[in-house]
């Protein structure tokens, strides 16, 4: 029982309402339903956090700030939510992507060293759990991609979103999404090639 109380309670709430749409919950919240807000938070906050953490190169504190800010914007828009116009998750990813882009831009203009350098050749990697090592290596590699490529690859391959949905999030065409993810994957494959051995792909 190492998980926190809130997380456990929210996980239970999540089990009970998987069939209710995000939109229905958002409308309920817009009418003052607190429970709907708890369910939406349980459902959406982990996704936003995961996305923001990748976008911001693993900066946990900043990713949490972005998540809170994005969710706050969702709370504010709830009473005016126009049903059927956009998926709630798509809207939220778009807001998060824009918040991350703003922060990355500010970060670059203020402190160019704040972007975490890919950690290379750590001796303990070979002994670490392979999954953790691979996840970390991928995150390091993602951090080296241009913002748009990183966003597209993260949404496609880590958040499991469809290309049309990503197109809506990034406000570009589906073709542009395909091109971004393809280039992003090529870049990742090239970056990770140098770490193949420590990642367990030495034979290739």
């Amino acid at each position, binding site marked *: 029982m190492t998980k926190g109380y809130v997380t456990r309670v929210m996980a239970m709430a999540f089990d009970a309402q998987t069939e209710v749409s995000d939109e229905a919950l958002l409308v309920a919240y817009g009418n*003052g339903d607190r429970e709907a807000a708890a369910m939406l938070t349980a459902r959406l*906050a982990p996704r936003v956090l995961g996305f923001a953490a990748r976008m911001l190169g693993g900066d946990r504190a900043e990713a949490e700030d972005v998540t809170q800010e994005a969710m706050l914007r969702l709370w504010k828009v709830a009473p005016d939510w126009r049903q059927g116009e956009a998926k709630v998750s798509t809207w939220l990813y778009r807001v998060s992507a824009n918040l991350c882009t703003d922060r990355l831009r500010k970060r670059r203009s203020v402190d160019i060293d704040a972007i975490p350098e890919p950690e290379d050749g750590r001796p303990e990697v070979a002994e670490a759990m392979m999954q953790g090592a691979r996840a970390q290596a991928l995150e390091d590699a993602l951090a080296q991609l241009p913002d748009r490529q990183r966003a597209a690859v993260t949404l496609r391959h*880590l958040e499991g979103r469809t290309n049309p949905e990503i197109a809506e999030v990034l406000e570009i065409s589906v073709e542009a999404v395909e091109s971004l993810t393809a280039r992003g*994957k090529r870049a990742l494959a090239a970056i990770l090639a140098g770490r193949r051995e420590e990642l367990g792909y030495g034979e290739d």
Partner: protein
Amino acid sequence: MAKTEHTPLRDDALEEMFRAARAEAPEPSDSLMARIMADAEAEIAARAEAAHPVRTPRPGLWAALVAAIGGWPALASMATAAVAGVWLGFGATEGVDALAGGILIGDTGTATVSYEFEDLLPGYEGFAALETETD
């Protein structure tokens, strides 16, 4: 199998890396969840405060009727017509002639000639006959 360090990672290997990263997705802390819910509560409170007593009453049946007729001016005309009707009913029958501008009474010069009110209502006798018949 002359592979160099620079051969890109194969697709299946990359896919495996994605899977690993998905499994290692960060989990929101309790404090983050609590902050988000506090924001949600604050928004509900702010909305309740902003929206409170501006309760416009729903238009009732009477208001709907007035609106259907054409508003208060139409209603005033109808009131005038009703009052005129009452006056016509109780007023002297000669008054009807005056109102009609003398066309009801022939220009014979005999001012004593007069019409009974019944003469002006063509169906009246019919009704009277009906009444006596059933008696």
